[in-house]
């Protein structure tokens, strides 16, 4: 057999191996998290606050972290949507295609998207200190909002750029202004908004570095924006560093909760893209 055919076979084998390796990683991570997390999971873990002696292995659950995470993710998703939808409209309806200004703005969002969350956190932390604020739910919400705005804008913008100019022109020719054309646009990019939201929620709920600085950690559920709030990723992080096995187990339970949430989000995202996109992969 000619050398090139041997090489072809060989390389195909290598490619198959690397692809299997990717699956191996996914499988190993999911298996490890589910096996360890399931053993530590109980109704108490989801439904109760940390009791006295929680951190030396006594009774209690992670309700504080679950509620804290939900507060932060919910509020920052709403705020993020409120900021990024107007920006996406501005870039795609108000500015012309191939506009220089839009190109620069997109580059800025790309860079913002790339900035590590720890830098966001450190930056927000110093601002909060100079304003005399303590770590709080409000601080966490603001920093997570800033963190997910670039994700929102980039994901929605990608869909909005596909809008045919003819569709906008049809709306203009009926006499509507650019602002009124938004009604047409929003219907068209609705699936994009949905996937962007799911992506942002995923990133917001899993981020630990930024909330470490800004939201702090507490054993109770915050009742105002000024109180610190616990989050699930930090619950994993802090309890895993404990030397006591019972406390470490709770970290596995929290990690399992996070993983399940992310899996559900990614499944929903798949369903939405499959249902609404015309050209499937």
């Amino acid at each position: 057999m000619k050398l090139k055919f041997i090489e072809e076979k060989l390389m195909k084998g290598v490619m198959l191996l690397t692809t299997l390796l990717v699956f191996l990683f996914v499988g190993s991570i999911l298996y490890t998290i589910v096996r360890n997390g399931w053993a530590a999971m109980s109704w108490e873990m989801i439904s109760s606050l940390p009791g006295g002696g929680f951190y030396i292995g006594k009774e209690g659950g992670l309700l504080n972290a679950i509620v804290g995470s939900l507060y932060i993710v919910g509020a920052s998703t709403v705020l993020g949507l409120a900021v990024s939808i107007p920006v996406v409209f501005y870039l795609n309806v108000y500015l012309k295609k191939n506009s220089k200004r839009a190109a620069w703005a997109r580059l800025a969002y790309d860079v913002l998207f790339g900035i590590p969350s720890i830098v966001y956190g450190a930056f927000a932390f110093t601002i909060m200190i100079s304003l005399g604020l303590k770590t709080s739910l409000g601080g966490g919400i603001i920093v997570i909002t800033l963190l997910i705005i670039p994700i929102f804008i980039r994901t929605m913008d990608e869909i909005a750029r596909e809008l045919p100019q003819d569709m906008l022109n049809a709306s203009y020719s009926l006499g509507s202004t650019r602002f009124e054309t938004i009604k047409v646009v929003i219907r068209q990019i609705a699936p994009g908004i949905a996937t962007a939201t799911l992506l942002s929620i995923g990133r917001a709920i899993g981020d630990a570095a930024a909330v470490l600085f800004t939201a702090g950690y507490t054993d109770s559920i915050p009742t105002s924006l000024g109180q610190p709030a616990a989050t699930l990723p930090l619950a994993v992080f802090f309890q895993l560093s404990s030397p006591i096995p019972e406390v470490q187990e709770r970290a596995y339970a929290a990690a399992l909760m996070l993983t399940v949430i992310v899996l559900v989000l990614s499944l929903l995202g798949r369903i939405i893209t499959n249902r609404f996109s015309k050209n499937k992969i």
Partner: protein
Amino acid sequence: MRSAETYEISRKTSVVRLLKDKMAGSVMFAFTMISVLLLILIGFGLVIKSMPILEEKSLWELLCTSKWKPMRGDFGFLPFIMGTLWVTGIAIIWTLPVSLFTAVFLTENSRSWVKKVVFPALDILAGLPSVVYGVWGILVVVPWISDRLAPHFVEYSTGYSTLTAGIVLGIMVLPLLISLFVELFSSVPQEFRDASLSLGATRWQTTKYVLLKKTFPGIVASVTLAISRAMGETIAVLMVCGNIVQLPASLFDGCYPLPALLANNYGEMLSLPLYESALMLAALILFVVVFVFNIGSRLLLRKIERSLT
């Protein structure tokens, strides 16, 4: 008479509508500007905050000495910079071939059902939170290194090492690199491949001489982007890297990357003079590297995209 009236009314409403259009436009413009300004604001904020230490010590001294004793006012960033470089380097070195081969497999060799299985798996990998990777690293990679791998090379390793961090970080970068490469390879026109195949080249030869050659600048840009993403990864690396302030002598030694420095010390940084400024300098270093790498690679990728279509 009547028609003049309706004309008047419709003129008025159209004025209102145009006004609404203008106002909405300026509000949207303001939102866009503010969000873009955030980038500049972060940069400036970090520069101002790290000024105090830069006035006291030269940048050269800070970046190239390795003594880190905040109590005595010694701030040498070299161990942290080396830690970041080592961990990122290891991660990229092993993920680059893996992601290249996988991306080639997905775009050039596989049937569509393979993609339908692989892409969701990559989605999961991309979506998993950093702490979950950290937990997996501690439960799987750390014992593997300390019990299986390290005894062949060194006398003793805790398993919390530079290599562990590199492995975990690499897996986190994989989905990003693969999706960038897949996008890149899909943008190469099918005619190029057909031309090569019709000359009798095998698929791999086509990949090697046409695809990889044609997309080489894009591959460089994608890797740069992945490096900048990897450098800022905090929690997962922090959990498995050992957090020892030293210049790592072997892969099985612990290290201490820049993001871990920030995350571990933010609480006590207010108690010491210059400490806050030093940590903000660490954040600034990360910011500048990520900024430059991102802009460079994005502009390059954009140029390539335009040249291919």
